[in-house]
């Protein structure tokens, strides 16, 4: 299993923001995207997840092995944490809800409506969904947002376990996470020089 990006270019709306992004990841690799706010980390992750169009370049990524976790936790406030995770287990056709709740230490609030949970607790339930999916490639957009130190370490340990088990993790963060052998990629270097891609502004009009 390999993720291979060759000369990717990403656009946000009509503006080209990244170009010539290339990397190769094999099983057991972790890629950490770094860059200032607005540099294009989230856009690149959405492109990798297939949620945003590829402006140019070539991407090899098995979409059937990929699980994406964005800025939002994709949780329904009216349902309990357990019901939310059970729903995703139904979508991914897996049967590991109780195991994941134990692994992520969600037991103390698993049966409360998500509306009553704190931002950090919601985040933990949202990240637990990645394990529910039982997929190999995790794409995580700032996974440590609103987590305390203890839970940041717990998630980092989960990521280490996942890559040790032959998974691939691509994440963006502003923190120094304790993940050995992770490749850091500063995406500021890929900033696009051609800014405007709108075809409506080309030629005579």
């Amino acid at each position, binding site marked *: 299993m390999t993720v291979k990006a060759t000369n990717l270019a990403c656009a946000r709306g009509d503006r080209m923001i990244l170009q010539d992004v290339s990397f190769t990841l094999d099983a057991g690799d972790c890629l950490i995207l770094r860059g200032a706010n607005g540099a294009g980390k989230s856009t690149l992750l959405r492109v990798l*997840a*297939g*949620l*945003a*169009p590829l402006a140019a370049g070539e991407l090899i990524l098995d*979409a*059937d092995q*990929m*699980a*994406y*976790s*964005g*800025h*939002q*936790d*994709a*949780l*329904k*406030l*009216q*349902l309990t944490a357990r*019901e939310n995770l059970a*729903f*995703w*287990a*139904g*979508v*991914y*056709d897996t049967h590991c809800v109780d195991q994941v709740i134990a692994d992520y230490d969600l037991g103390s609030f698993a049966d409360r409506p998500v509306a009553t949970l704190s931002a950090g607790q919601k985040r933990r339930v949202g990240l637990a*969904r990645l394990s529910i*999916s039982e997929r190999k490639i995790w794409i995580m957009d700032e996974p440590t947002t609103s987590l305390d130190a203890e839970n940041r370490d717990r998630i980092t340990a989960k990521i280490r376990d996942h890559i040790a088990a032959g998974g691939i993790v691509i994440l963006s963060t502003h923190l120094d996470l304790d993940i050995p052998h992770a490749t850091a990629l500063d995406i500021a270097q890929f900033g696009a020089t051609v800014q405007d891609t709108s075809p409506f502004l080309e030629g005579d009009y």
Partner: protein
Amino acid sequence: MRALFLRDIQLGIRSGGGFGLALAFFLIVVMFVPFGIGAERALLASVAPGILWIGALLACLLSLDRIFQLDMEDGTLDTLATSPLPLSGITAAKAAAHWVTTGLPLTLAAVPLGYLLNLPNTAYGVLFVSLLIGTPALSFIGAFGAAITVGIKRGGLLLSLLVLPLYIPTLIFGALSVTRTINGQDATATLALLIGLSLFSIVLMPFAAALALKANLK
């Protein structure tokens, strides 16, 4: 897909939004008609089929924007789009769940509400049947409209403008089935056309909605 269908029904009932809102709106519209046009029994009986169908249609319209908007806002739609479910399966499951939480309750409520409008006795059966086979078209066409407008904040007006013209055939054949029965005519042909509209929508709209969602997610 089953998990998504069941979860949407659970959400519709638990939050009270889609489920209660449409029913309450339908009830209010139908109850207000006698106050508005007077309690003349013959007049009420002649407008009853139209009022019941228009009421059901508008009540259905009221909850359409919830089909995809809420999932878009909390990131569920992004995650669903990257899940093993095909997008057309997602839209079909959500439209079906919308029908179970709005179309079906409206159909059941229409029968007692028909009594309030002095609907002739012969028409209750065909009213129930026409709504039962006609409301799926409303949910599936509506899901298509909701998928087109999903990225737009407060897109309700645009959604109504897009969807209402597409609802007109369903409204005509639905109300006409009931009127023809009241007049002692045969309603088989209009009911058959109504079934045709619903089947057409159920088969094609999920794919159209999936394309619209794909364009909106990008």
